């Protein structure tokens, strides 16, 4: 694992700030055409989760990489729905995402402590990384749910995202966005910039599919805006990923050929 270009604190700060700002603008403005901002927030949150997975899984958690991604969204969906429900209960919609985030951070810290202290995995960064992963999970789910529903209101989200079942693709794509970047780059020559640019591209795929779902839910134009912006982000970051693969593979990036000399 190479030296990180971005520190954990920088990635977390960007993920939480951009994530929350995107969700709030999309949720409070009430303008469906701004719903895509919640998706952009969720992409940054995906990156924050992927970086945390990268740090914790570099301690040799090989087959646990997918499990940890699913764990993130498992913790995230409970906290997200709890937060939004609290917002509705106290008739203050705007506290929903913050309450959800705080609850997720607490759940993540507790799960991390249990893993380290009770199961005795003894990985130094476990508590911090699971806290970040849970935070990323809640922001990803809230972000994409708000993008699809165009609102932060719990009743609207339940009616338009959960009851219709659109939560299923959001849930699984959100989880893959967090776990796939590091899982797809597993190996001793993994680099942080390649993993993180891949996280953006996975988040953008989730944004595109979320945009498709929001065509049926809020407004065709709002959905198409999300799809087009998502596709643009995906294209740019996917090409960036391929460029970094070329850089990291060096002379090993070949069109075709036999096995390398000395390998037979």
């Amino acid at each position: 694992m190479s030296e990180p270009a971005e520190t954990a604190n920088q990635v977390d700060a960007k993920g939480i700030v951009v994530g929350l700002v995107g969700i709030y603008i999309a949720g409070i403005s009430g303008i469906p055409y701004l719903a895509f901002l919640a998706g952009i927030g969720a992409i940054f949150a995906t990156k924050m989760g992927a970086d945390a997975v990268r740090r914790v899984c570099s301690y040799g958690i090989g087959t646990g990489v997918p499990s940890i991604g699913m764990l993130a969204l498992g913790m995230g969906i409970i906290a997200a729905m709890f937060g939004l429900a609290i917002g509705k209960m106290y008739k203050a919609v705007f506290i929903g995402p913050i309450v959800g985030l705080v609850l997720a951070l607490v759940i993540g810290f507790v799960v991390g402590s249990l893993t380290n202290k009770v199961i005795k995995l003894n990985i130094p960064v476990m508590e911090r990384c699971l806290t970040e992963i849970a935070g990323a999970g809640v922001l990803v789910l809230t972000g994409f749910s708000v993008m699809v529903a165009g609102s932060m209101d719990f009743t609207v989200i339940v009616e338009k995202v959960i009851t219709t079942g659109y939560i299923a693709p959001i849930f699984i794509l959100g989880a893959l966005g967090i776990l796939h970047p590091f899982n797809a780059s597993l190996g001793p020559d993994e680099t942080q910039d390649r993993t993180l640019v891949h996280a953006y591209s996975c988040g953008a795929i989730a944004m595109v599919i979320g945009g498709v779902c929001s065509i049926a839910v809020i407004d065709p134009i709002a959905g198409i805006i999300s799809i087009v912006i998502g596709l643009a982000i995906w294209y740019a970051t996917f090409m960036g990923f391929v460029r970094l693969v070329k850089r990291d593979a060096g002379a090993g990036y070949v069109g075709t050929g036999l096995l390398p000399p000395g390998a037979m």
Partner: protein
Amino acid sequence: MEPAMGMGLVALMGAAATVAGCSEDLESDIGSQSNPNSQVQLAAQVGYPHRIFNKAISGEPPSNAMYCAVGAGVAMVLIQSVNASPLLAIAIGAFVAALLNGVFSTTAYMGRNASQTRFNQYVYLDVLRNQLLSLMGHAYITTFCIVGLSYVMWHHDLIGHPFPFPVIAMIWGLAVGAIGSSTGDVHYGAEREFQDFKFGAGLNAADSGNITRFAEAGIRSSMDNAWFCSKFGGPVTGIAFGMTVFLDNWRSTAFSGWTAVVVGSAIVLALIIYNRQIETYARKKYGPYPEYAGDIEA
């Protein structure tokens, strides 16, 4: 609903599930996902760089759940917003899911091989091009069948399951991935890779990674593995998943209430006893490894 109609739907779902199971297993075999992946990932590190597709998209259950949930989500958008015919909508949904399969497979192959540069593992673009369309094609078939059977299960005029359409598809996607991973992949991960070892010989650590090197003729490719697994591993996954879908829906369609629960328990019990008998029969017939002289029950 008439009983004949109900049984017809159950049979249709079972048939779709059989095809889905088979194509799911072959898709994962071409990409060496799940069970055999650890050997493929390990091979370069023990000095055996290879030309096998390394498709690490999480485990099979989450990745298939993703294709099926996305396929069903897109199909539902088309049905709800433009009133598309269900068959066309499911076909388009499965196509979108196959595209996602292509993107995730590409990034997994490129990323994993680029992360093993120090072991002389190359990123072969022809390996990527040759396998990618087969992967996407098989993923399309799987998604189409699963989303189709989920639609039959969800639609209120047909079976009328209370869960939303994409959630049913996601659950069946998880199921087909889990069954492919536990049934068919064993044929690749255990049988194909170690077919020249004697029964009960175990795997010497020094033989790790050997499995990626030679096929019947020349260097082994992922297509050779699909050819091998399509003879047994794929169909057996199809039968396993088809039976799961068929027997589960059959008992709840033909019976109701507690009778259905009792019939379900009886089926599970019968299968457990049958499996145990096959296992003991195989161990007795093919015996312990010839050079083994211990007295532990084989």
